[in-house]
């Protein structure tokens, strides 16, 4: 009974982690940007979905769509207002650009967080689930929304895989992640590829944010922990490796759930962080890292 509980609960949370981390790792893999405003974009999506549904009363589906739309917009804003100006700047030496992007996105994330807290307070918000109720799986009473979350996460990740591996645009993205100079030599505009990647990222972060808002709820306080959790999953899996992030997401998700059930909910995140430190010692590039 308890084993099933851990299996089911762990799966939903892991799938959500996976979706949240995928976009983060994709951006890094393709454009070398570590986007520290990631958590803020997810929270913005969830709060927008909540506000649209609860304050404006547009309904659950429209609310969720608005949430994803807000994430997409915020992602573009992040790219055009923060990342691109730094990348294009002639005054910042190339070797320092990464650290500028890191700082820039971090500050941008804090700005979004403070704006959310200012307009919507720092109290947690929860998005009304698209499907309500509970079902019995192997004797475990599971919220239907939890199953819905897991299914959507898996579907979106599968779609992303198809997009990257089976379409022309996707292949260009993949190529850019392997050799940006080679792509430009083939006559592809690198900026266009980046825009596509940021669009994909915005949608992924938006869906993850809205689902998180339905499943667990978010507040402006969640910004830091969300960025940190995506960051540690991605580092554990290997920076830039999508499949590594997926595996790492499940490792972290199940480790947390196991700890919460078998040890204490108070120590939930500790073993995963210890594992991260341990992996950094023996395999600094992460589980499937290639850099």
């Amino acid at each position, binding site marked *: 009974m308890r084993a099933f*509980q851990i299996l089911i*609960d762990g799966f939903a*949370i892991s799938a959500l982690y996976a979706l949240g981390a995928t976009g983060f790792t994709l951006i890094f893999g393709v454009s070398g940007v570590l986007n520290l405003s990631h958590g803020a974009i997810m929270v913005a999506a969830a709060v927008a979905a909540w506000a649209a*549904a*609860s*304050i404006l009363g547009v309904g659950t589906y429209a609310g969720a769509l608005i949430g994803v739309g807000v994430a997409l917009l915020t992602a573009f804003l992040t790219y055009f207002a923060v990342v691109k100006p730094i990348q294009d700047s002639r005054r910042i030496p190339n070797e320092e650009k990464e650290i500028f992007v890191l700082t820039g996105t971090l500050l941008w994330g804090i700005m979004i967080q403070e704006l959310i*807290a*200012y307009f919507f*307070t*720092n*109290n*947690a*918000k*929860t*998005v*009304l*689930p698209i499907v*309500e109720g*509970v079902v019995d799986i192997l004797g475990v*009473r599971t*919220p239907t*929304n*939890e199953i819905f979350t897991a299914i959507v996460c898996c579907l979106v990740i599968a779609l992303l895989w198809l997009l990257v591996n089976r379409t022309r645009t996707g292949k260009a993205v993949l190529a850019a992640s392997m050799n940006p100079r080679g792509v430009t030599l083939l006559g592809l505009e690198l900026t266009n590829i980046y825009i596509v990647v940021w669009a994909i990222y915005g949608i992924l972060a938006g869906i993850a944010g809205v689902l998180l808002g339905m499943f*667990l*709820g978010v*507040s*402006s*306080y*969640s910004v830091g*922990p969300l960025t940190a959790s995506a960051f540690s999953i991605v580092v554990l899996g290997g920076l830039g490796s999508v499949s590594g992030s997926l595996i790492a997401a499940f490792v972290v998700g199940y480790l*947390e*759930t196991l700890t*919460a*059930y078998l040890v*204490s*909910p*108070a120590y*939930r995140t500790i073993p995963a962080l210890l594992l991260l430190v341990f992996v950094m010692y023996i395999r600094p590039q992460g589980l499937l890292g290639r850099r």
Partner: protein
Amino acid sequence: MNKALSGALRCAFGAAAAGVVLAASNAAFAADPIKIGVIAEAQAIAGASIPQAAQLAADEINAGGGVDGRKIEIIGYDNHSSSADSVRAFQRAVNEDKVNVVIASYISEVVLALEPWASRLKTPFVTPGAASNEISKSVHADYEKNKYTFHGYLTSAALALSVCDGAKDLLVDKMHMKTAVIMSEDAAWTKPLDVGYEECLPKVGLKVLDHIRFSPDTTDFTPIFNKIEGAKPDVIITGISHVGVQPTVQWKNQQVPIPMFGISSQATNETFGKDTNQAAEGVLYQGVSGPGVAVTPKSVPFAENFKKKYGNYPSYAGYTAYDEVYYIADAVKRAGSTDADKLVDALEKTDWEGTIGRVQFYGKDDPFTHSIKYGRGLITGLMLQWQDGKQSAVWPKEVAKVDIKFPSFIKLSN
């Protein structure tokens, strides 16, 4: 001779001029406003009500002519829920803005950080919403040093008593419940609360089967609820404040069949229903006041005026902050001065009927020195329940408007 004369003249002129300046400054002193610094969490719903309620009280007092002709001036500081920001605000309030009294924060950690500063800067300081026992215990332990701090809200020990008193009448006597699991967040204010719960729940007839403490940054409550369900208690006794929306929504989404009863600070906010998409339905929580609950004749008019002015009902800390401005004004009047030590003496003699009951402070020899007194005829607190999207009082029976009712997924074992 001439020189001597002119020197004497100069002296005389100087003295006269000084006298004029002194007299002028004395005149100005009489009309000087009484400055109250209000340090609060502007972004948190519980904290946002604090400066608003204080301002409302000041406006009312000023409209009635002030205190012996002196107006009350509220100077607000946003502390971003941070202890460090609060300490800086406190220093600025006292050293630069020259406030006479400070009202600050609903977070115990923040208040415990400010307490030594109230002592160092010798400035009377009242908290409208923190609960930790340590606040008033420190006053008791070193009275001369810490006497400037007043605890204007119930201590965790008193909160536990209030919950147990409510549980006895509502859960044990009426619904014949026998067992409970305590679920509380790991924070300064819940340590004494849990000790209180462990002690008083068995006394009122609820056996404590398990006790789950969790980190305040927990987001997934599934394992916690599953563990609680495994223990098969009749009721979950809560001690939550930093979290609230998330456990409540997950309680509903997972259809945990056990009622929640206890301290749930976020549930005291009017917006809690909307924040949880009405998952709050059926949640029972302790409060000191609530919309439409006439704890005293002042409670309802205050809540309604607050809503008229700010668009929503005040949080629990709004009620206490409002009362605090009034009894501080009363103390200044009785002390006849804003001198810190005289004000402390006057505040100790406070006997003020406010919006949450009759406010008096425990004395120097009581273990919780300078905390507000708990008990019948003073402040007992209430139990309220979210019903049909509204907060309704269910205990004590003098103010109860409705009977307890639960959503359909709650399965009462008796």
